[in-house]
């Protein structure tokens, strides 16, 4: 049997593409780095866990139900979302995490020679999916850590099909106000699909922060992404969704993989929508954690970028990947930002106070090891 002729079989854009290697499981990492505990401050997970109603669903999931296919299009969840946002159920598509719905949208609108426009330092999956699908990802540099609306408009050409705006931006926490977003949508004027990624929407308390769900009627070229992974703490179940005008969603549905969202995820997600207290509790925890971190980082004379969302980015006087290893040996997992093109920055998930104190303690110890920072 001959070996497959990969050189001939594999498209050039796949050859160029570098696969994303996820972290090893926690137990493996603990063995590797020789630590007994591991505080996960790397993935913006909610340490409070899912809301109580969702926990009840998870606890009570009957094992025999695992043998039955889930609803192929998350029927009940879409109806519940429609009720919550005052939209039609056909305006929603549910996917195996927001990553999957990104893929649906790009497949639905791009063909050979097309491009997408987004920022250079933002959630990487828009760029990845475009590139490994053979489309050009045009990356506009951030301006003052935020999406540059004018720069993005200048970058658009007649082969641009999609514009991705992460609002608030991961990892900088900056956001476009309602006024700025409307101005942008007016200029685009339906020539492209504008995707507003609101993965961290539920964390934002600012009054001028736009609600994409409320804008669809006026802007039928707007598609909004939301997730149950962050605020609702269902990251392990993989469930997210998109919403848009019925015409646009009908197009995206053609590329949608049905049955990709499991029954437990659908039922747990449905239950999260009943609970209002969970958001209040989480926001309070994030507020306290952020205040504490800002104060401590100021004391340590480190610069940081702190905006919306449950994360904060800080600049270290050392390589962020070295810092990652040093934090790991102390049982703290942070996100190094080289891969986001922010060398020497790290991103921290804002968590409960005990974790934040442990982080600051480890940070101080690591800085003290640096030759020019020793007392």
């Amino acid at each position, binding site marked *: 049997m001959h070996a497959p002729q990969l050189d001939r079989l594999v498209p050039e854009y796949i050859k160029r593409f*570098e696969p994303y290697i996820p972290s090893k499981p926690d137990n493996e990492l603990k063995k*590797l780095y020789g630590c007994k505990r591991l505080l996960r401050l790397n993935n913006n997970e909610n340490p409070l866990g899912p809301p109580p109603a969702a926990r009840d669903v998870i606890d009570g999931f009957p094992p025999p139900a695992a043998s039955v296919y889930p609803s192929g299009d998350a029927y009940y969840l879409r109806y519940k979302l429609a009720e919550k946002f005052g939209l039609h159920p056909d305006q929603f598509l549910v996917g195996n995490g927001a990553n999957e719905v990104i893929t649906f949208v790009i497949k639905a609108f791009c063909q050979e020679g097309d491009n997408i426009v987004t920022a*250079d330092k933002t959630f990487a999956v828009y760029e990845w999916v475009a590139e490994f699908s053979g489309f050009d990802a045009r990356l506009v540099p951030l301006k003052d850590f935020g999406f540059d609306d004018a720069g993005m408009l200048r970058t658009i050409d007649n082969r641009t099909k999609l514009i991705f705006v992460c609002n608030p931006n991961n990892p900088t926490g900056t956001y476009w106000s309602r006024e700025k977003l409307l101005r942008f949508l007016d200029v685009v004027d339906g020539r492209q699909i504008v995707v507003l990624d609101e993965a961290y929407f539920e964390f934002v308390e600012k009054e001028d922060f736009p609600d994409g769900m409320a804008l669809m009627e006026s802007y039928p070229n707007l598609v909004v992404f939301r997730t149950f992974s962050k605020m609702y703490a269902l990251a392990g179940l993989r469930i997210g969704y998109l919403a848009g005008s019925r015409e646009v969603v009908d197009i995206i549905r053609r590329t949608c993989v049905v049955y990709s969202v499991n029954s437990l995820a659908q039922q747990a997600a449905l239950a999260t929508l009943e609970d209002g207290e969970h958001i209040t509790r989480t926001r309070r925890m994030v507020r306290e954690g952020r205040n504490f971190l800002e104060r401590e980082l100021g004391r340590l004379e480190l610069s940081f970028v702190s905006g919306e969302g449950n994360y904060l980015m800080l600049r270290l006087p050392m*390589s962020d*990947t*070295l810092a990652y*290893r040093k934090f790991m040996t102390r049982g703290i997992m942070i996100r190094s930002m080289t891969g986001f093109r922010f*060398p020497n920055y790290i991103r921290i998930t804002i968590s409960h106070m005990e974790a934040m104190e442990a982080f600051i303690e480890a940070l101080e110890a690591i800085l003290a090891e640096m030759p020019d920072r020793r007392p």
Partner: protein
Amino acid sequence: MCTSFVEHGALAFGLDERGATALTLAVEEIFSYLCRISSPDRGVTIRSSSRRYYNLVEISCPVKDFDMRLFNLTARVSAEDETALEQMGLLIASRFVDRLNVTQGPDNGILLSLVKEKSYPEADQIMTMHPKEVSRFSLIRPQPELLKIITTAVKALYPPYLFPKAFLYPGKVVDMVEGGEYEALAATGPDGSVGGALLWHWVSEKTVECFGPYLFGQAKGSAISGELMEACIGAIAKSPALGLVSLLPTDELPREHFEDLGTLTLFDEKGNGTALTAYFRQMHEDPGAYSWCHPELEPFLRSQYGRLAMPREILFVRDLGETKSPFSVLSVNIERSGNKATIRPVRSGKDMQENLIGHLSLLKKESLKNVFFVMDLGIPWQTEFTHPLLQSGFSPRVVVPYGGEGDQVIFQLGA
């Protein structure tokens, strides 16, 4: 037909007559040898291609018993021995080209890659740029003429141990950049004056090496170095690169982006040593790895891994009486301008100690002051050289994470 194909190809690809003749002779010798040792029903395939600054000829043949010993720098052929005389052609071939690699070819055969570089004129001593401070700058990919000015300026303003040999030939650097082998960034002011530059290239599938930043007429603390470095890191951030190394660091290298791997000492012709720190930056979060190790190297490795907080599992290579090849093979890269030789193992064998001593004696005759040995800890048999290296006066100096298949250890002789 074979020689005519190679010679015409070489001339068409830009080698001068002398280079084309040398490459043709090398191919002829190898081809003749392979025809003698291969069975008549098995073909020999020859491919010739241009890589801008060099001509590459690849010869593949399904033979199994190929004596690579002849590619040792120390190889000699006895005039008394008829079989050895048959092999003399290989020895001649290896000396006619700039690089010769032997790897596994199709159908379990061998693949010989011969590289002959084009000849380029050396850079003028006279600088064609007057360095001046630039207060505002933007980063650009320099065009060929600007690149020539930059490399000339580097040669004029920096000592030779802070730039690679290729920089002596600006035309070659242009071809390397145009051919995609090197990448370059320059910081230019509004009037087009060049404030600084940084170049980098891939040294392996996982490692990028950068040169510079080189600054021209800028005040200490200029923002140019940091901007160049961050742009370089940004350019490779989403690539397969696991590490970025700087082995020839200028004073302007922004240290906060790097980890200190240790020092190598470079001696000039008079024997004066300059300690050069090897710098490394990891490009991804470290997922952990294993390193093969000879017990004599363990204390060094553990101390380095501990200092760098590198998550590594050390696996030991031990001799349990299995049959070994009688002969080892080493490759040597000599850089006369840097007074430097770098040895890499090609194959281990029972004669490792003698072979190493033979090579060192030859390099001593060449008066090379800086001799390094690079060992890949991802390839178990390479660690068998540890004892012979330590016995011959080498000491381990630097671990380069993910420098090869696994981490690399750079040994230095007598430092």
